[in-house]
């Protein structure tokens, strides 16, 4: 443990006291998607302390996370582990080290839609994502089914003050990544 720079970087980026972890494994034991992870959550935390920057930033784990926050709520040291993963995602994307790009891409399309209309335009967001993935018919049946049941709108819901909303995005977007 010679190099604490990554630990310091992550404690600052997430605002969480990562060094408080004493490896009780409660986060890992409670995680509903741990089977799909390449690094167990408690190990991610430990690797941050040990300064294993590359291993953590390139891990699949931070993208497998569902942000269900079970780990965070159970942590006896009040470390919001899901929030640490969220902070890791931002750094991984900034440095183009992300192990999986789908989650970020979808979240970004989601935000583009909100920025444009003020409210999420579901079908536009989904179609943009599907086109990007070149997956045109994968969920067509589901889409039709939802449409028939009246659960998929066609037109966007625009708010009145879109100008003010866009202004807010502009003021904050380039300022810093992550906040």
């Amino acid at each position, binding site marked *: 443990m010679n190099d604490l720079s990554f630990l310091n970087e992550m404690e600052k980026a997430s605002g969480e006291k990562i060094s408080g972890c004493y490896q009780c494994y409660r986060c890992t034991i409670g995680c*509903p*998607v741990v089977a*799909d992870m390449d690094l167990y959550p408690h190990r991610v935390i430990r690797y941050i302390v040990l300064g294993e920057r590359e291993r953590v930033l390139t891990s699949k784990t931070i993208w497998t996370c*569902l*942000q*269900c*926050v*079970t780990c*965070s*709520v*159970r942590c006896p040291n*009040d470390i*919001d582990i899901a*929030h640490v993963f*969220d902070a890791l*995602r*931002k750094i991984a994307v900034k440095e183009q080290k992300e192990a999986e790009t*789908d*989650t*970020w891409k*979808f*979240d*970004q399309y*989601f*935000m583009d839609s*909100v920025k444009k209309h*003020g*409210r*999420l335009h*579901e079908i536009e967001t*989904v179609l943009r*994502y599907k086109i990007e993935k070149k997956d045109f018919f994968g*969920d067509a*049946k*589901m889409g039709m*089914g*939802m449409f028939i*049941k*009246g*659960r*998929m*709108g066609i037109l966007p*819901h625009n*708010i*009145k*003050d879109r100008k*003010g*909303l866009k202004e*807010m*995005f502009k*003021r*904050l*977007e380039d*300022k*810093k*990544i*992550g*906040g």
Partner: protein
Amino acid sequence: MRTLTYYPGCSLKTSSKFYETSIREVFSAYDIGLKELDDWSCCGASAAHTINETIAHALVARNLSLAEQENYPLFAPCSACYNRSKITNERLRADKELRDEVNRANEPLKCLGTLEVKNIIEVLSEYAGVERIARKIAYDLSGLKVVPYYGCVLTRIMNMETFDDKENPTSMDTLLWATGAEVAEWPFKMECCGASKTLTNKETTLRLSSSIMDMAITMGADAIVTPCPLCQLNLDILPYLGRGARNLPVLFLSEIFELALFGKLSGAGSHIIPVDEAIKKVIKVKTINTYEQRKNNGDD
């Protein structure tokens, strides 16, 4: 008549429109008035905080500042909206630096973080109240066995007191009990449905939602009841996600109230998994199972 500022969120205007209709019908039966927040915008849900946390707070703060001018408590029926609103509200109140930054971005709007933010369980518990709920029952739900499914984000909120236990909530159980339905104790109250991975990783949502459905079937339930529109949708689209096994209807909390009050569901046609079997269990007897009688029978 008590009034709340109503923040629908995107889901209640699109994929879960019938949830809004249901809430309005039930609330008016208990004299709870809803005044929809003018020109509200998306709360950013699960996406915004991943992309940029300050923008996530600013998006919520925009709605909070509009609601602060109204002077009623804010009612957010969607669990994600409630979760994000609650977090930003508390953070902005406590953290002046963040509050100033967010308010600068949202100018001329100004958010103080002084609002009371409430979810549907809180509103029904506090504004209608268990006793009034039980008194108003017009249909017998005792033949309907339900499992209460809270979902992740309603009570799992870090760094603050939540309205119910974070990992073993019981407030919705109490409400359901008050409607006269049979409430099963089960271990999957808080299990994750797969959340927003439905598009990016269908297999995860299928696996997680399917195991919730399986557990509900094992418990001998007739329906799963949830207050969260995302949980409801993920479970309701299970047939489309590729689940071949049997599915139980997934009802919104307010829909159980609809059954108890009116004996029917206004949004029955919007459910993907058919709800007819569950409704049939309700209408058979015209109420008599009133609060007083159950009390006299020693049922409580």
